[in-house]
């Protein structure tokens, strides 16, 4: 038994899988070491409250990365979803939900366009990011809006024992994991990233696969927008601009790769939480939050360097 365990631990593949969790643990330990009070129900709830929308956006980006694409419009799209929710969700919920469903359909249509015309996803989504942002600015030129009470109540819910952000991110990770890693259709979806030609020849429609992935990304982005509205209570068009790059960083930090369909939903959520925590870490270190993006970049570089080292070991 012991022999089996040591064999597993010295296997570089295991090291690679443990890397996202290890980096989260290091950031958490560092925070708790500086400020013991952070290791409480209240402290964790406060530090992690923005982890929920960021984790949702990261899962959305992960679906796109699974089929070897990259979405540069997620931030703007989450912003638009937030503005739509802030404008109509309280007053005309049915109309609001219809609009959000249309947004998800638009995302699926973008996926179809990219597949059919064989376009680079970076270009298409970069262009679409200006469309989403423009719509959001037209809708809500200044911060404001009305947020329904039930959404506010949900986001500030205090369940017993486990803080809500931890519970929510666990559920997000579990749902995405079941969908992509455990279901039989998930295997086909990931296969489309690994070897599209083989999946096509086995009789699956790459068009349907890509449309599904983009629709899923749209759906999770809308959820991210709703979570954000529930937290801030006064959305504006630029509320989620940083989410585009943050979501990419989260997926990569969580062990995902840009090509080849190698992604991990659990890892992606861990990556998103780690990036969220760096903000708190800097505050506890009494460093200006202006350095937050730099610190996130630093973590990303450190983790990627470690992963490259593990890969070198694997190659040997």
């Amino acid at each position: 038994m012991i022999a089996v365990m040591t064999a597993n631990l010295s296997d570089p593949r295991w090291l690679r899988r443990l890397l996202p969790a290890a980096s989260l643990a290091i950031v958490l330990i560092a925070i708790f070491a500086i400020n013991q009070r952070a290791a409480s129900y209240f402290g964790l709830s406060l530090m992690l409250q923005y982890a929920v929308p960021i984790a949702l956006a990261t899962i959305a980006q992960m679906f796109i990365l699974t089929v070897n694409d990259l979405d540069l419009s997620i931030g703007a799209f989450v912003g638009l979803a937030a503005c739509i929710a802030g404008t109509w969700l309280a007053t005309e919920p049915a109309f609001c939900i219809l609009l959000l469903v249309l947004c998800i359909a638009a995302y699926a249509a973008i996926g179809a366009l990219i597949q059919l015309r064989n376009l680079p996803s970076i270009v298409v989504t970069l262009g679409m990011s200006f469309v989403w942002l423009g719509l959001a600015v037209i809708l809500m030129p200044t911060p404001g809006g009305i947020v329904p009470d039930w959404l506010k109540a949900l986001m500030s819910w205090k369940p017993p024992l486990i803080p809500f952000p931890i519970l929510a991110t666990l559920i997000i990770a579990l749902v995405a994991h079941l969908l992509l890693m455990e279901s039989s259709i998930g295997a086909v979806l990931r296969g489309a990233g690994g070897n599209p030609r083989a999946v096509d020849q086995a009789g699956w429609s790459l068009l349907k696969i890509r449309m599904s992935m983009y629709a899923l990304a749209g759906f999770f982005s809308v959820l991210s927008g709703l979570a954000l509205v529930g937290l801030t209570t006064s959305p504006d068009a630029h509320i989620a601009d940083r989410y585009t790059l943050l979501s990419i960083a989260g997926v990569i930090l969580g062990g995902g790769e840009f090509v080849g369909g190698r992604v991990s939903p659990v890892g992606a959520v861990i990556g998103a939480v780690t990036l969220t925590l760096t903000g708190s870490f800097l505050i506890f270190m009494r460093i200006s939050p202006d350095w937050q993006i730099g610190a996130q970049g630093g973590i990303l570089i450190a983790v990627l360097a470690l992963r490259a080292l593990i890969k070198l070991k694997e190659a040997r």
Partner: protein
Amino acid sequence: MLETAPRIVSLTGMMKSFGAVQALAEVDLAVGIGECLGLVGHNGAGKSTLINALAGTLRPDGGEILVNGAAQNTDYNVRRAHGLGIRCVFQELSLCPNLSVAENTRVFHKRLRGLGWRRRAADLIQRKLDEIFPGHGISPHAIVGDLPIGQRQMVEIARAFTVTDDPLRLVILDEPTSSLDAVAGKQLLTFVRKIVAEGGSCLLTSHLLGDVLDYCDRIVVMKDGSVVAARPAAEFDRASLVAAMGNVVSEARIAAHERTVRQRGATPVVVRAKPASQTDQGELIAHKGEIIGLAGLAGHGQTRLLLRIYEAASRKSADASITGPVALIAGDRQNDGVFQLWSIARNLTIRSIRALLKSLLINNHAETDLAARWRERIKIKTPSVDNNILSLSGGNQQKVLFARALGSDAQIVLMDDPMRGVDVGTKLEVYDLIRAEAESGRTFVWYTTEIEELAHCDHVYVMRDGRIIADLARAALTEEKILQASFQDKTGREGLAA
């Protein structure tokens, strides 16, 4: 197979051209029920094209496909072939490297869904692997990308033989033993005989002629896009099979070369290189003014050796040394050769840019002059060298790549099978050009998959499995010798016992 014997598939009058190259010229092929058919031929003989047409991955220009006696129309594709019970194991793997063995089985079978799909997929592939390759040691939950190439090939083969709802009638195995070791290869061929005995059919290509001779019922030999021989395997032996595959280089051409034969070693050595996987003393040596041929089956390390020589120009290495500037002419034109957005002139002069500098800027006059000179010299068919490179035909694009190398200061020119998909007229022009340049002192190292082109070389090295295994002077060069060296015996014996 008798004319009246029942057939699983029958192809008649298959035609396919790629540009000016005719890959299939009215080929007929039939596989009987309960038959193992061997398909052999040298590179470019049309085997792969024919197999792809049968598997539904390539649409032929003309011809008829009958499966189980039913004619297939133009919407015949890989899915339809699969539904009719035709499975294909290709040389390039069709597994998803990011998925596990079981998940790859799931991608192949629509039926494997719902609760417990993973266990059922694992069972299915595990049982088939155990049946074909006893003692394989592959876990159905291993990620395919982490497996060594041999085990990946086993999974690919076993998966092709798994059955859920679609029937299994014919399995096409394209070089299946190329990445299997001797034991696994033997296990597979034994399994194939078992399937055939049970009434299944199999189409097998292999460059291991011993496998084809020992395990196939009938052998079809292809050459230059046509079937040149089709007889029961028992009527072939190794020698007659090699003879059927080859074609004799025309006597006149050989005579012409004999007249110009030069004493090897009269000029200094300019290239010396040893392949990475060479364990013995074999190495490539080129003297100034020589045309050195690199032969052997495609993908046996020739391109890697060329790149090794190319790298020696900028990095000192114990295994490769060159004297003088070097240029490489790429074979994969679209990927490695042309800059698609640039003009003909820019594409042609890029290798010589240092000679065209005036202070720090490119001298436009000199650039246009150089391009215009080479356009005249090798007759690039274009109204203006300022047109985009893609306005040229494939053959003319290749001429530009030749001009890029020959117009530069390079004294050593490496050629990576540059005549792929080039029409005959252009080829003849370029052959003359290479000859003339060699006589004026340039050295060429020429990898080619076309045996006829080796007749232009002064000295030929044959490569197999990344190693130089034969070293033939021009006087000793015959096609038969090259084929014998390229096609290895399972026992490791070098070709025919002479």
